């Protein structure tokens, strides 16, 4: 009841395009339950809406002694390959450039409470994730998000993921200019863009305001833009240096310069051109080689530049490329002073410590950015509501998430810092750990991820606790180091760019499996993640705290005046670093040290039997398959309308279903076909009907005729009988489109 209730209640508040998207998804759910959508197609459909699988969703779990089957109520029904319907899953909510408002925080808190586990989890790419959500609750959750301007669209799957940006954009002391409006424009432009629907893998974009700081970590992204300002004839000219082909994972690549000094108005089209080249030439079959970094490495950057230039030249003009340069985003409104005690009050040592670690002086006089650290990126529903209240009181709508899994408040008046500190302290969120070694970053790992090997969150929590206990005793050079943990080689914890990084793996010993972490040292956080660390050896998970102690102790003992950790690791070298921890690799027998055979925070004896099939990229489903699937959803809505006696709606939906299917077919040859019914039908007729390519061997052109006639007449069905006829013909048309696609694929393969 609540499902339709929320839809009706929120109808006026949801952007129409998002509302329709969600309606289609809801219909797809029903069709999948009826077995009318293939599980692979449905999996990609849900992934492209941010709906992910979670660990144990294949119905298997190792309880520490034996493998057990989880008996879910819906039985064998699946929502993807080896992914059971009733197994709770994750929903990833996009937070473009990390920007949040208090009302959005409120709504996500409600959703976490009602559908998830009372926790909002901030990811290393500024998204928010809800875990343990049932698939049937997803449409309602999406609607409630859409009503406050949030979307999950393309948060997973083979598309453009959340677009990240430096949380200091606009207030940073070293940036060239504020990248926020450009990030927002690119995010809106690419969301659902037809040129981004046929990727072989995901595509991540980041923005930075400057080259030297960590900023947006552009160098590890598929595509990144770094702001620059040059003086030309005495005038400042803004532009972007655009990088392409970076990425982490098992084979990390640093991004390469695609083009420097790209004018602001060229950023969107050049990105679109990159997307089209990637869609056309990127690997589709082997997902392990399908990220754009492999394409760029394969062609070489010069050839890739040429391909992009060539593509850019033939792009049809789009007025959205430059619209944002005129409109822009409304500037953030600096908060008014609350007449606080004043930040100059230095009598409270705890406050001073917090201010020194958690507050950053803005470029604008009299203001600071304050970091609210979230342990392991987690915040409860109740805390979220209280934090939203504090934001309303001190800074208004200027909240941002960070890639270090924290939240920042911008535009805090310096005289209000002390009151803000007190307010955060009251809700347990004033730990003085921001940008210190204590503030460990981690991906979900084995807690919820299907691919996790080791307990990254368990380790991160342990390190946080141990380092936090001795934080004040740590050498200054150690306090500022960063630790990042990934549960496997896929690098979601971004361990490659940490001073001290770890990624999960395992080793076998005397017939048992021991959880391990590979130690990666000397990654560069600065310069946009400018270089990656050295792997120096895999160590049993339970000994990692000892690794941290040894490495930091040795660094303090051996560092030369002014020497950074990065420099020290470079000077010491892989061999020297490995030697420091070499003896920790030895695995004793189970009888000698049974604790080594389980992981942090998880007393079950370690097993890798719970690792499932990753959904990180999803299956490669063509955009034609997806669009035909959407057409089926719309046709289904037409049938429902007919059953409800709504003739007008049945007619409209049936016609729209045929248009959608026709567009899918036309797009196989004309990717840029506009959303114009006349053009779609015209192109379909010319290319496929008149040429007899859509002609069925037995039915001839019968299946295409209803679309052509309905479009030509422009007249809706006059009565229920006519509507019923059109609804049936719409379904036949879609079936014929599928058959056409199969015929064409056969013809193509026969000629190869």
């Amino acid at each position, binding site marked *: *009841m*609540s499902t339709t*209730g*929320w839809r009706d*209640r929120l109808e006026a508040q949801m952007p129409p395009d998002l509302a329709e998207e969600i309606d289609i998804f809801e219909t797809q759910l029903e069709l999948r339950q009826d077995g009318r959508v293939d599980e692979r197609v449905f999996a990609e459909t849900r992934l492209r809406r941010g709906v992910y699988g979670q*660990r*144990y969703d294949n119905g298997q*779990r190792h*309880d*520490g*002694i034996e493998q*057990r089957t*989880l*008996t*879910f*109520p819906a039985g064998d029904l699946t929502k993807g390959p080896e992914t059971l319907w*009733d*197994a*709770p899953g994750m929903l990833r909510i996009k937070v473009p450039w990390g920007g949040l408002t208090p009302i959005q925080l*409120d709504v996500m808190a*409600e959703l976490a*409470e*009602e559908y998830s*586990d*009372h*926790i909002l989890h901030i990811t290393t790419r500024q998204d928010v994730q809800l*875990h*343990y959500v*049932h698939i049937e609750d997803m449409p309602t959750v999406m609607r409630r998000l859409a009503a406050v301007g949030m979307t999950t669209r393309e948060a997973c799957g083979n598309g453009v993921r959340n677009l990240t940006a430096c949380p200091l954009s606009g207030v940073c002391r070293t940036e060239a200019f504020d990248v926020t409006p450009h990030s927002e424009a690119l995010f809106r432009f690419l969301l659902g863009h037809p040129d981004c629907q046929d990727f072989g893998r995901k595509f991540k974009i980041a923005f930075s305001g400057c080259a030297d700081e960590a900023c947006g970590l552009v160098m590890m992204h598929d595509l990144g833009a770094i702001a620059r300002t040059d003086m030309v004839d005495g005038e400042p000219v803004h532009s972007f240096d655009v990088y392409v082909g970076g990425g982490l994972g098992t084979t990390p690549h640093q991004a390469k310069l695609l083009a420097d000094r790209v004018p602001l108005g060229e950023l969107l089209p050049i990105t679109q051109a990159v997307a089209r080249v990637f869609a056309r030439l990127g690997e589709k079959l082997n997902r392990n080689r399908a990220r754009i970094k492999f394409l760029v490495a394969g062609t070489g950057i010069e050839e890739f530049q040429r391909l992009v230039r060539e593509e850019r030249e033939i792009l049809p003009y789009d007025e959205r490329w430059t619209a944002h340069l005129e409109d822009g985003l409304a500037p953030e409104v600096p908060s008014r002073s609350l007449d606080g005690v004043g930040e100059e009050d230095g009598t409270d040592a705890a406050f001073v410590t917090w201010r020194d670690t958690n507050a950053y002086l803005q470029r604008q006089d009299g203001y600071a950015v304050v970091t609210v650290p979230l*342990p*392991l990126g*987690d*915040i*409860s529903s*109740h*805390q979220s*509501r209280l934090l939203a209240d504090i934001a309303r009181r001190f800074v208004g709508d200027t909240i941002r998430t960070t890639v270090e899994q924290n939240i920042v408040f911008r535009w805090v008046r310096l005289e209000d810092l002390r009151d803000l500190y007190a307010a955060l302290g009251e*809700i*347990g969120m004033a730990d003085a750990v921001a940008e210190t070694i204590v503030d460990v970053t981690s991906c979900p790992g084995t*807690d919820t991820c299907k691919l996790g090997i080791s307990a990254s*969150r*368990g380790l991160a*929590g342990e390190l*946080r606790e141990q380092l936090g206990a001795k934080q004040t005793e740590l050498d200054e050079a150690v306090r500022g180091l960063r630790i990042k943990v990934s549960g496997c080689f896929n690098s979601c914890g971004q361990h490659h760019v940490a001073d001290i990084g770890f990624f999960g793996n395992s080793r076998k010993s005397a017939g048992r499996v021991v959880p391990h972490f590979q130690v990666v040292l000397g990654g560069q956080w600065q310069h946009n993640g400018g270089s990656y660390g050295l792997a120096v050896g895999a160590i049993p998970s339970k000994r990692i705290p000892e690794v941290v102690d040894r490495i930091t102790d040795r660094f303090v003992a051996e560092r030369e005046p002014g020497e950074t950790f990065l420099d020290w690791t470079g000077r010491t070298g892989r061999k020297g670093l490995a030697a420091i921890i070499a003896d920790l690799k030895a695995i004793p027998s189970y009888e000698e040290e049974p604790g080594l055979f389980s992981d942090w*925070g*998880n*007393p*079950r004896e370690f097993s890798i039997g719970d690792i499932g099939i990753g959904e990180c990229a999803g299956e490669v489903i063509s955009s034609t398959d997806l669009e035909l699937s959407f057409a089926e959803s719309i046709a289904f809505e037409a049938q429902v309308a007919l059953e409800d006696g709504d003739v007008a709606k049945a007619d409209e939906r049936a016609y729209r279903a045929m248009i959608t299917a026709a567009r899918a077919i036309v797009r196989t040859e004309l990717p840029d076909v506009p959303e114009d019914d006349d053009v779609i039908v015209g192109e379909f007729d010319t290319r496929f009907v008149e040429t007899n390519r859509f002609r069925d061997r037995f039915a001839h052109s019968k299946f295409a005729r209803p679309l052509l006639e309905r479009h030509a007449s422009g007249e809706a069905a006059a009565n229920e009988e006519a509507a019923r006829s059109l609804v049936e013909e719409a379904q036949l048309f879609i079936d014929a489109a599928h058959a056409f696609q199969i015929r064409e694929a056969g013809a193509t393969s026969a000629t190869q």
Partner: protein
Amino acid sequence: MNPQRIAVKLYLEEPAALDPEELVPVFHRFIREDLVTGVPIDVARYGHVSDGPGIMIIGSLKDHALDLGGGRAGLSTTLKRGADGTVASRVHELVQDVARLSVDLQADPDLGSRARVGTGEILITILDRYEAPNDDATLLKIDPAIREVITALSEAGGAGAVTVERVGESRDPFAVRVLVDQPRPLIQWAEGVEAASV
């Protein structure tokens, strides 16, 4: 009113005596030994989040937790899906679940009787803002169901005088606190809960 998501919570008598992390191996064992209902899947650890859900057994139909919400540690069971029967019967089933969980934890040898649970206060929360916003109208609608459960429990367990009050702000999920004048020891109360019929 047909709310699907309902939670029932009892409070620990001495929360400081128990480190939430101690529950992690116990809950894993409970899953292994099939001691909890609701298709249990895994243990989730949120002890690091103050005012959070604590240590949870996540299930397909029900969650069970050492719940740190509201700044007070307690044991809770949450019905998430698959609800049938009346609202009263759902609440009663959850009270039975949390009573069993409490008895099992209180007797667990690994916890050394440190998980002592009081029966004088029960928090009932409806996690459905559409069906049950936190206002007096919802209280009017839900009150008969709550009374039906309380009556059944009183008859079976001899709980004494009872007061029911709505708690929280309008933006919070709807919740009522049930306070019992003469609370019984857990074991005795749990037996009554088990025997009561709604």
